[in-house]
């Protein structure tokens, strides 16, 4: 409240000022009552930001209560979650952003009874189911892997790995929302898409099973390649990442084994390259973690969780993320993580974030993926976070 100096001087003005002050003080002491809030308000999400992240969580102590949690990496806000059934692995985001697919398992009485497997389709703006597709009740129950389920490159077919212990892949038409079929993949595991109508699985002898599909999702060719790596001497982990026309796999011994996709859909072994120097190998530096690699296509960079430990520690989390330029196969950065890291993921945009989680922690850490600077941490995220997925 402002008053002219001259008005303040007159007695009438003083009275007005006093009355106003009294009114103001009275109003401050007893504010008007708050209006009633409407019932049934539900938040609708804005369009997805490239800096959002899904934290998949199989909730190990209570596996019937699988979850996926959505967070905004730019401000640490918890945006919402999905409830995703028993032994949950991962969401698969439709390429056009209009649906979220989730292969799920349910028992009619929670932890017993009749098993039903479905692919639930969720509306990503409302985080609510809009439909489901029943699939054979065979989806593999394992430590969550990205290779448990993937879309073909054009987003037309959803591929789901089965293990009963017989191995096969369920194919779902993601366009018509119908089951397309099941492909036998005996002796081979998981799914790694290579094109609009192709993927491979990794076989126990170190070869790959190259599968091509027709427009109905049926297999037109299933071909075993030559062996890509020596399973007995230095096996690769299942936790490969795709960059352009290659999949990059890392071995227990910290060697990268690229798998190159040829123009006619063939698969060739790329030149292997080490993540460590001989001195570092002697110090037992090796990759570890559950989701141990991440890749940024635009920057052509590979990120790897590293730690020092013996050969049996190939799943251990690490407090270092080392960054490599994929053109030169050279390490360009070493990021000291704030907390032990077991899962990493980067966003796909030109100013990417790096997310880090760990299965025994409920803290999600956010870094600048280019500078390595820690930006923020979000507490209380899930129970046993596993795989990180960015749109």
């Amino acid at each position, binding site marked *: 409240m402002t008053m002219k100096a001259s008005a303040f001087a007159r007695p009438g003005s003083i009275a007005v000022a006093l009355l106003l002050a009294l009114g103001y003080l009275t109003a401050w002491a007893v504010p008007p009552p708050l209006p009633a809030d409407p019932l049934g308000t539900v938040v609708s999400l804005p369009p997805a930001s490239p800096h959002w992240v899904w934290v998949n969580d199989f909730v*190990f*102590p*209570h*596996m*019937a209560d699988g979850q996926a949690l959505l967070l905004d990496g730019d401000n640490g806000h918890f945006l919402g979650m999905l409830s995703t059934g*028993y*032994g949950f692995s991962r969401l698969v985001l439709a390429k056009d952003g209009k649906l979220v697919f989730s292969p799920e398992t349910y*028992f009619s009485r929670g*932890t*017993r009874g009749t*098993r039903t497997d479905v692919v639930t389709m969720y509306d990503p703006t409302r985080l609510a189911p809009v439909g489901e597709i029943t699939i054979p*009740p065979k989806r*593999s*129950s*394992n*430590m969550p*892997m990205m*290779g448990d389920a993937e879309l073909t490159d054009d987003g037309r077919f959803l591929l789901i790995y089965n*293990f*009963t*212990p017989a*191995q096969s892949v369920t194919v779902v038409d993601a366009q018509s929302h119908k089951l397309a079929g099941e492909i036998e993949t005996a002796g*081979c*595991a*998981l799914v790694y898409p290579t094109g609009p109508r192709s993927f491979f*699985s*990794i*076989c*126990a002898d170190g070869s790959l099973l190259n599968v091509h599909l027709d427009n109905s999702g049926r297999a037109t060719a299933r071909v075993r390649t030559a062996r890509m790596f020596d*399973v007995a001497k230095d*096996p*690769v*982990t*299942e936790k490969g990442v795709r960059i352009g026309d290659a999949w990059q796999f890392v071995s227990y011994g910290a060697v990268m084994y690229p798998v190159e996709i040829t123009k006619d859909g063939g698969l060739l072994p790329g030149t292997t390259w080490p993540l460590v120097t001989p001195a570092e190998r002697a110090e*037992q530096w090796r990759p570890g*973690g*559950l989701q141990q690699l991440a890749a940024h296509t635009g920057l052509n960079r590979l990120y790897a969780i590293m730690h*020092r*430990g*013996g*050969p*049996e*520690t190939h*799943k*251990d*989390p690490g407090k270092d993320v080392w960054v490599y330029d994929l053109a030169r196969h050279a390490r360009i950065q070493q990021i000291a993580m704030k907390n*032990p890291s*077991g899962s990493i993921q980067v966003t796909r945009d030109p100013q990417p974030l790096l997310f880090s989680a*760990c*299965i*025994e*922690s409920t803290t999600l850490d956010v870094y600048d993926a280019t500078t390595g600077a820690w930006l923020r941490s979000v507490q209380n995220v899930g129970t*046993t976070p596993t795989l990180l997925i960015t749109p």
Partner: protein
Amino acid sequence: MRWLDSFAESSTRTMANRTSRRGFLGSIGAFLIGTSAQLLLPVARGAHAADSQGAAKPGGAKPDNSQDPTSCEYWRHCAIDGYLCGCCGGSQTACPPGTEQSAVTWVGTCHNPADGRDYVVSYNDCCGKSTCGRCLCNRNERDTPLYAPFESNDYNWCSGSSKANIPYHCSTARIVAVAK
């Protein structure tokens, strides 16, 4: 159940690092069946062995737990990865009441220092209820990725049981034969 190694091993190791050793063990001490609190830590390998062995009693030799069935260091547990059924109402060979023993399983060999023999040990899971949650124990010798299932501890082997497709509860460690 042989697919918990990353959770189990890093879980207890990191908790031991973050909390005082007494606090960590004290909070779960109630679950022990008359054994020293030190035994709850999974046997770690390589560079992490120091964590699990660091709690040796002052002035005394590290106790030999290889004959204690409730210990992770029990000789049969050389390749176990899950909750010990002995802490869950069952035993090293028998499932807790109301659960079902899965015939499809992972099999390894362990050395018994008491008689100097190697034994074939079968880690049949007990299935049909939610996870037991007691005595989580993981040992990771010769584990292979999912694409080599015979020796992969990352599968839920309860999925292979005929009455199931049912949830994992705990793990037994059955002797099958002398390995020769």
